[in-house]
């Protein structure tokens, strides 16, 4: 479940890789700017030699890069950014508790990270009631993290009610996914 990348996490992963490569390019490009003023004597060139014979190329395995520790992708994949709720409930379920324990541990390690807890509901309720219910869910997630030692000042809460489902379907499965508390990193990730 946690490894099923939603389009959003896939986009985040791509974003993180792009950011990383940009950072590397920036690092390479900036170094040659400083050149020592001391003239460097040119060393004599070695006489040309025939190209060395190479061994047959070993095949190189490629695969997804490990997320950068402390990145949003790391949080999403290795801690989990969503916990799920039962119909009209806001109690943290046991499966959600283990995700939140992992979130708390991760946030304990990366202390500059700030998060926004977003409470979400399925479509089987009225807009205003679901907004209030989503707020309860976000608060339940927040309270859990605070009880695990995360500074409340690092956490914002909001409810999206039923306005931002992650699954557009109208099935039990879709509703179960859409009843969630989402922990969104807003600052401080690598």
């Amino acid at each position, binding site marked *: 479940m946690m490894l099923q990348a939603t389009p959003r996490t896939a986009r985040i992963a791509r974003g993180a890789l792009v950011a990383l490569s940009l950072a590397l390019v920036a690092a390479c490009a900036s170094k040659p700017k400083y050149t020592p003023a001391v003239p460097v004597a040119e060393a004599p060139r070695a006489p040309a030699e025939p190209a060395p014979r190479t061994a047959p190329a070993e095949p190189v395995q490629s695969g997804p890069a490990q997320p950068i520790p402390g990145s949003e992708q790391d949080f999403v994949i290795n801690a989990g950014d969503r916990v799920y709720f039962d119909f*009209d409930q*806001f109690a943290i379920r046991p499966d959600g508790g283990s995700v939140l324990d992992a979130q708390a541990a991760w946030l304990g390690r990366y202390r500059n990270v700030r998060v*926004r807890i977003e409470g979400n509901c399925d*479509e*089987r*309720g*009225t*807009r*205003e*009631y679901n*907004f*209030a*219910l989503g*707020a*309860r869910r*976000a*608060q*339940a997630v927040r*309270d859990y993290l605070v009880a695990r030692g995360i500074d409340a000042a690092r956490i*914002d*809460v*909001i*409810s*999206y*009610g039923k*306005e*931002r*489902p*992650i*699954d*557009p*379907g*109208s099935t039990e499965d879709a509703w179960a996914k859409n009843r969630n508390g989402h922990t969104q990193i*807003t600052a401080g990730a690598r």
Partner: protein
Amino acid sequence: MSLRVLFAALVALAIAASLPMTPARADIVVDVNQGQIQPLPISIAPFGGEHGADIAQVVGADLERSGYFRIVDPSASSDKGLNVGVVPLFPAWRQIGAQALVSGGGAMGPDGRLGFDYRLWDVNGEKPLDGQHFVATPENWRRVAHKIADAIYTKLTGYKGYFDTRVVFVAESGPKTHRKKLLTIMDQDGANPLYLSDGSYQVMTPRYSSNSQEVVYMALGDNFTRIYLFNIETGRQELLTGKITGLVSAPRFSPDGNRVAFSVTRGGNSDIWLMDLRTRTETRLTVDPGIDTSPSFSPDGRQIVFNSDRSGSPQLYVMNTDGSGVRRLSQGGGRYNTPVWSPTGELIAFTKQDGGRFSIGVMNPDGSGEKILSTSYFEEGPTWAPNGRYIMFHREAAAGDPRLWMVDVTGRVERPAPYSQSGSDPAWSPLLD
């Protein structure tokens, strides 16, 4: 023929005085509270003059959509020359089955304004029922039509009209996972739709003031909730909740337009608050660990009906405007939400969730007399026409888009509202001036 001309002169006299020509009581009426509605057959003779045909078309569409009238095609009548200055040849209209008849015509005045006369006739009684003269700028011809339709509706049903009104709502577009939700306004018949917000946040639950062209609504962004006050006529928008700690939702005007009740959520707990728009001060009305939301004032401004799950499931409660005297209204099984007091004070509309279905219903203000008007896979968000006879709401099929619908308080007239695209959270305006 001379009698006809004489009558026309009398009619013109009465029109000039801008008075109805007969006692208020019509002999023909649409009895809208019978077990079955028999729509009244009414014919609209071709209107002459500037925008005559346009106005006749809009009047007919308004009356037909109300569910209380059936339009009889006037082209079958042998009374071809009927205009606003002559008395109809009643047998010709009886012959095609019309019980009521409308004639009318307009002319541009020297000031460039459109003057329009209309007459309503009792075909069987062979007498005039109503006549009025309207003056408007030519581009306002649709409102002339709605005012004529309102006059006819009032005369023949005994209820105030509701056609010269607007509806604000949320136009929805894009996939459900990334929904664009824009504040939108249209005339009650779907004409003149106009977006009023720019899409930088999602708009939810707009509500019309009952005595001005102002709207309050909730804005939802990635990291904020706000309640805005928006003036339809000036376009001026004002943030009402900038100083309020917590999440804000579910705004609704008091009947005098001077206060806004809304829900404030702090620490996960939602309670009802009241803001005085003149002083911008807030008062907290409920202090309860349950969800308290969706407040709606009684038309006398003394009580607020709201939604609370303090008993374990969402139910309807009523309290005094100072927060005292809370008592539960809804008693049936099921989950009750979004109570809205009717403008006449007689009924409270609500959304009910029961057995996996959603319904729009009404109950008396003491909680008795519950009546379900409409049921489907999903529907919510009732709003009252200013005459208290119709409710607009939105309905959504499974995996479908929301659509605006309307139902009358008898539950027998149920039809899509005249907006063909995706819309939700309708709010009806008061009658325009």
